[in-house]
């Protein structure tokens, strides 16, 4: 008798994806400016490490928030015992207001419509459990965050059907792509329960346009299905156009208290905006009382630590701080993004024009030996093992076209980013030299002295220190 469940043995956890394999390679040989300057630079991790100093200084001025104290009195007992899945009221209020602030105060969000979860990972899975049965499907625009394969499908047994977006129009969602995806689901005999979008998009780094949002709202209304808007990067929009939440679109169309008002759900988290992924703070926002009720009960499987809720309720209630933080954080992100774009441009590499997030969607199609995903993998492996950068290949994000990569810029120091840019430049130059000399790319990459000397030149050490194809 087979001893373990099917879920243990299947691959739906998604960890065999190149997205995660790159991380593993990084972990074996992580870059450190001083201790391991030839190591792999991590550019595959969408983390916001730019504004910790702001958080630390707030904490230093507010020791009660972390010392389990309120007005100098210990509330340790109260917090330690608080396992109410409705969450600390002060925290939910503060979170709802923070979310409103990020949306330019153009929407009103009620704290009783919020469900706290252990990160957006848990929020997305919980929504799937609430909205769909095993075997049902959700439509997702490609490219999308690789973690969705696990979060949405693994334990829920829900299917993802892609809404194919491509570079011809900047990867924007179109009406025909939506319809095509729906038909594809029908062909596969799958009942579609909803659409899930990430706005701002991961990996594209762009905010959805009003046109796209209207398309989506009309589409789900016509089909009678749900729309989940994962707005985890909503606080990280650093250029125009401004962020527009789907909630705002509904309000502008006067859809409050209509059926469709209950079909739209938002996922949020503080992991990106505040840069605190370790604290596991996620949330579902829904106007549908039944969804809130069911999701709240399910949140028992992954509540937010009351210790953390308390700290963050204090922090987010400090409006002066949040305003300063959000604006300063955006400034630093913008600066960082510009650094990356400049560095890439120097190497003759372009990116999709973006205004949000912690990464750029980089166009390396011209570096491929052929317009195939195999060629994309080849380049990717070179970039990891020879250039020493962990970036995420578009195929891991289910991109329909080979040659695109997601490159993160906010999880390292400026010096490290500069180092990464230099490496890329060197790499691209050598690729160009190869082309100019007319050598066949495959020949170049067979183990020969030219390759050895490139490795030596770039990294200044013996060829044998590098392992390939681990």
């Amino acid at each position, binding site marked *: 008798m087979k001893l373990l469940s099917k*879920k243990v043995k299947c691959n739906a956890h998604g960890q065999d994806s190149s997205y995660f394999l790159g991380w593993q390679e990084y972990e074996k040989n992580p870059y450190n400016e001083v201790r391991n300057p030839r190591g792999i630079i991590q550019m595959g991790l969408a983390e916001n490490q730019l504004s910790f100093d702001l958080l630390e200084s707030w904490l230093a001025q507010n020791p009660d928030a*972390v010392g389990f104290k309120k007005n100098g009195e210990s509330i*340790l007992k109260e917090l330690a*015992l608080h396992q109410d899945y409705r969450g600390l009221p002060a925290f939910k209020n503060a979170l709802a207001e923070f979310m409103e602030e990020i949306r330019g105060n153009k929407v009103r969000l009620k704290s009783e419509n919020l469900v706290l979860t252990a990160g957006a990972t848990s929020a997305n899975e919980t929504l799937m459990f609430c909205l769909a049965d095993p075997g049902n499907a959700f439509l997702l625009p490609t490219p999308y965050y690789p973690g969705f394969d696990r979060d949405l499908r693994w334990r829920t047994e829900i299917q993802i059907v892609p809404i194919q977006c491509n570079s011809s129009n900047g990867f924007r969602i179109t009406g025909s792509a939506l319809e095509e995806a729906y038909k594809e689901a029908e062909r596969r005999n799958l009942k579609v329960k909803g659409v899930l979008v990430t706005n701002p998009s991961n990996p594209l780094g762009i905010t959805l346009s009003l046109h796209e949002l209207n398309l989506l709202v009309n589409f789900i209304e016509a089909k009678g299905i749900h729309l989940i808007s994962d707005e985890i990067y909503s606080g990280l929009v650093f250029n125009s156009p401004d962020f527009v939440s789907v909630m705002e679109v509904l309000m502008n169309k006067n859809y409050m208290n209509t059926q469709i008002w209950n079909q739209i759900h938002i996922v949020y988290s503080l992991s990106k905006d505040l840069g605190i*992924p370790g604290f596991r703070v996620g949330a579902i926002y829904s106007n549908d009382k039944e969804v809130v009720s069911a999701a709240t009960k*399910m949140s028992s499987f992954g509540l*937010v630590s009351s210790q953390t809720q308390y700290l963050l309720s204090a922090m987010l209630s400090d409006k002066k701080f949040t305003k300063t933080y959000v604006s300063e954080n955006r400034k630093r992100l913008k600066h960082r993004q510009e650094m990356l774009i400049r560095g890439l441009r120097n190497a003759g590499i372009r990116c999709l024009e973006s205004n949000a997030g912690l990464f750029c969607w980089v166009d390396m199609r011209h570096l491929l030996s052929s317009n195939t995903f195999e060629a994309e993998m080849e380049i990717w492996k070179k970039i990891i093992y020879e250039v020493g950068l962990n970036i995420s290949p578009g195929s891991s994000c289910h991109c329909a076209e080979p040659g695109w990569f997601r490159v993160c810029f906010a999880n390292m120091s400026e010096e490290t980013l500069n180092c990464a840019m230099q490496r890329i430049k060197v790499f691209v130059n050598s690729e160009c030299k190869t082309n100019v000399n007319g050598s066949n790319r495959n020949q170049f990459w067979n183990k020969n002295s030219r390759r050895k000397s490139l490795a030596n030149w770039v990294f200044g050490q013996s060829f044998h220190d590098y392992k390939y194809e681990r």
Partner: protein
Amino acid sequence: MAFLSKIATNNGHGENSSYFDGWKAYDSDPFHPTKNIHGVIQMGLAENQLCFGVIQEWVENNPKASICTPQGSNGFKDISNYQDYHGLPEFRNSVARFMEKVRGNKVKFNPDRIVMSGGATGAHETLAFCLADPGEAFLVPTPYYPGYDRDLRWRTGIQLLPVVCESSNEFMLTREALEDAYEEAQKANIKVKGLILNNPSNPLGTVMDRDTLRDAMSFITEKNIHLICDEIYSGTVFNEPGFISIAEIAEEGAVCKNRDLIHIVYSLSKDLGFPGFRVGIIYSYNDAVVNCARKMSSFGLVSTQTQHLIASMLSDDVFVEKFLDESAKRLAERHSLFFRGLAKVGIESLKGNAGLYCWIDLRRLLKEPTFEAEMELWHLIIGEVKLNVSPGASFHCSEPGWFRACFANMDDETLRIALRRIHKFVIQKTGSDQPTRREQYKRSKLEISLSFRRLDEFTMTPRTLASPHSMTSPLVRART
């Protein structure tokens, strides 16, 4: 029309059970020593509130553990940024060491086998996802913690099949009961994937002896099914006999032939009294399960802020020893106060030595030995005695008349008030506070007709309890 899922709309969350009427009554009329002295006393919540003073003192003397004090704010970035599902190494190490200490250092735990989860609630669900497919079943001895119905079944589609334990042998688990349950499953064509043990037991408050554990081990080995041992109350053992963990039996080569079948669930919610911090642990001897559960832990990781605090606290050996001693002492005292208080009016309880509650025998107060009578008695206790205790039916007990009453979630004075109310109630019902066995029998007939009249008055009086639908669900605690 955008409908919700079957899971979202079925009753698998378990919150519509009449069990929660007591919670609702408490929520609408909570006892307070000064503001509401006649309110309902909460005795349905298995929380450990006895040692916060000890912990508070430690927290105040160790500001670095809170990472973000002026002394420790430069640790903030590394902690808040760390989302590795392996967990902070110091957290895993300290939890492994703590689990060893709780077991008298008789076993060793490998920190690499420690997997985090969203409380024991999350741990159970994750193990169910790892070990069984929808439609398959776990066996679980009755009476058992009501939350298992949700945790193990709701989103997983797994079934729970009872292994009936009876008062005639103090609800001890027998090999015969295990075999019976397994056979019934076979007959019904249900594939059994495992057995769940809760040791120390909720609601019984007793520990399993070595023979029973060995028996269980040989049973699961023979059937080649998993053994999940929920040891969430392992640190609340306050009297002899001591606690024997399944980890000890797992090290007995003669009995345990396949350690791949053994998994332990743990949490800091009961031993330390930290349910709000959501620290759940899966410890498995099976590499594939550790691997898979770890990936699944992404859905319920412990906040690194909390991991850091716990790591600091539990690696302070002096504190841990002091805490475990003090906690056992206070639990013993509290238990004794309650146990003796009940005995004074002839109420017997199962002789327990662990946990945060007593398993009380109120069979002689039943109108008749039925679950309907148990419900009636229970509503009486809530409505008139104003105590929220938990009826045995909600724990799937096979015999009516047993109730679980918690004693560690209040102060001494509140417990005394609860006991006074119980005394008054029993005396009124039985006409005496010290019935002999024979008198009990006679009186029970008289008392039946008396109580029947009282119940009639009770049921005929218009009640003003809020309708269940107007209350927010009482299962707001993750675990009761």
